[in-house]
């Protein structure tokens, strides 16, 4: 268990990166607190796996340092870092039994046979494969194999950190939920530092204490699920988290008033005069469909998902989503929308702008 510090870290897959665009992982300073569970969330190709492989030592960063509890491990091998990592696709040693698979990392580190036997039994129970311990790994299904990989990742108790690279992609939904719960309880029990890479927001939000959102090789926000929902620091976070994501509306802002295509929208904070690409971000949850006043919209369709209704509408030619209560009736005359002023976020060039209380 260790505190992991990333100092000025960046990585490019090109030998001589010229511009910032050549970097798969842009310059990054961050401290992963000891014993916390983090989720690394982002769309495919945003640098999540690169970051993970740098932490585990499979990849050497182009620049910067990695410190474990203040000790520089940038040049240390994976083995020296004492890290466990689980990959997206199951990696099992085909010719070994499930038991031998689970024992392998311990055996390679010279643990005593009694300890190995006891630990393997524990892990076997944890992943629900006690009955299959003496089977060969080859004939098993993909999710059984992935459970073995997970088990192999968790079998060492003294690891500095546990890294998961989208480990539940191949596992069926019901088992997914169960394994995730187990990972969480494991975290509570042993307090390992855990980093969990995923592109699934539900997975990230349910697993982690803190979610790290990455976009285009950059960490755009680190926060609790609540912070990510209420105050997305980047339009991507707003769009990526939430279902449907945050609405982003081009506007001009002056003081406490925003103007969208000539219609004024009241804000509850003052921003002064903003220049650059100014946008309002508002979650569908805080948009109400009305008959009387607000911005004019054209409703395209209504999707009833059971708990609520999602109204897909068009605002000056751009799509906007509105969440309506399940019981609320939607009439053809409702072609205006109102925003909850306290829930409007203002973005300049995609980044959140904090206003002053008006």
């Amino acid at each position, binding site marked *: 268990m260790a505190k992991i510090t990333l100092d000025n870290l960046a990585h490019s897959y090109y030998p001589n990166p010229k511009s910032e665009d050549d970097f798969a992982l842009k310059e990054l300073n961050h401290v992963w607190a000891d014993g916390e569970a983090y989720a690394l969330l982002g769309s495919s190709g945003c640098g999540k796996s690169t970051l993970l492989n740098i932490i585990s030592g*499979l990849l050497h960063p182009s620049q910067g340092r990695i410190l474990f509890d203040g000790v520089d491990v940038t040049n240390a091998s994976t*083995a020296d870092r004492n890290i*466990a*990592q689980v*990959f997206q696709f199951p*990696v099992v040693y*085909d010719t070994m039994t499930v038991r031998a698979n689970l024992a*392998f990392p311990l055996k*390679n580190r010279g643990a005593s046979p009694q300890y190995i036997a006891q630990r393997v039994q524990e892990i076997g129970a944890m992943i629900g494969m006690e009955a299959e311990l003496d089977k060969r790994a080859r004939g098993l299904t993909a999710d059984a194999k992935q459970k073995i990989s997970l088990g192999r990742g968790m079998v060492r108790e003294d690891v500095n950190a546990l890294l998961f690279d989208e480990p539940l992609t191949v596992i069926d939904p019901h088992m997914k939920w169960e394994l995730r719960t187990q990972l969480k309880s494991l975290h509570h029990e042993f307090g390992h530092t855990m980093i969990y890479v995923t592109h699934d927001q539900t997975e990230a939000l349910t697993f982690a204490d803190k979610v790290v959102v990455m976009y285009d090789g950059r960490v755009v926000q680190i926060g609790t699920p609540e912070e990510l929902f209420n105050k997305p620091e980047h339009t991507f976070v707003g769009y990526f988290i939430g279902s449907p994501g945050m609405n982003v509306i081009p506007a001009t802002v002056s003081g406490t008033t925003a103007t969208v295509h000539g219609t004024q929208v009241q804000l509850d904070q003052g921003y002064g005069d903003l220049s650059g690409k100014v946008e309002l971000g508002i979650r569908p949850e805080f948009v109400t469909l009305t008959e009387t006043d607000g911005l004019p919209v054209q409703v395209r369709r209504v999707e009833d998902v059971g708990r609520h209704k999602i109204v897909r509408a068009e605002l000056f030619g751009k799509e906007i989503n509105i969440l309506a209560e399940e019981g609320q009736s939607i009439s053809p005359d409702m072609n205006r929308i109102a925003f909850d002023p306290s829930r409007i976020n203002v973005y300049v060039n995609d980044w959140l702008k904090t206003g002053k209380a008006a």
Partner: protein
Amino acid sequence: MEKTLNQKAWFLVLPVLVLVAFSAVIPLMTVVNYSVQDTFGNNQFFWAGLEWFEDMLHSERMWDALGRQVMFSAIILTIQVPLGVFIALNMPKSGFWSSFCLVMMSLPLLIPWNVVGTIWQIFGRVDIGLLGYTLDALGIPYNYTQNTIAAWATIIVMDVWHWTSLVALLAFAGLKSIPDAYYQAAKIDQASRFAIFRYIELPKMMGVLMIAILLRFMDSFMIYTEPFVVTGGGPGNATTLLSIDLVKMALGQFDLGPAAAFSIMYYLVILLISWVFYTVMTTIEKKEG
């Protein structure tokens, strides 16, 4: 609905039957025909039954040739398979040098058998060959026309030179199919180099290696041209392998009956050993799995 009975469809398989008949059945049956008859010339044949087969089974000459043949195949397999795997493991995995190695290694495979024989025949000559002359100058007794060990060493080294690439290429293809994640996981698990080979690389190569072993066995067991060009079966009968002996018998002595019986048994032996190989290897694979 009632099926219409129409036997004319049989005509559709006729072309295949004709082709197979001319390419395989008729030549093979000619051999069978010779093997059960005897002749004193003038194209007059007499029924001989299984006499030739009995003769052959008691022929010391054939058993000696078979012994030499088995030894040859065994030696080249024990050299070529581990060597090929070793080369594949140490080849660059990608980039220019990988392609370069692949091309260089494929070259021996492209050379016709009798050219390979000629190359080594000249290469090994004590008077003008680079290898033979050098060894002789170094004071090492080497003369494949007179020394049994030298003759065997020459044809074995020649076969290794000619065919190890095939094993290496197949093994390399097997290695290339292993996803990176396996090596990364092994690093995380702190597996030793040997453990990586034993538990990741070897199991993944098993399938292609099986094919490599089978191909190399069949080819080496039927080998004729190369050793014939180099040693002609000599010195004495020291390198007279089965097919060389067979040609001597059939075309040299014109003993058609015994030669035919010989070739049928030769064919059955190859079939039998290949079958045993295949069965054993698939059971091993199943057990591993």
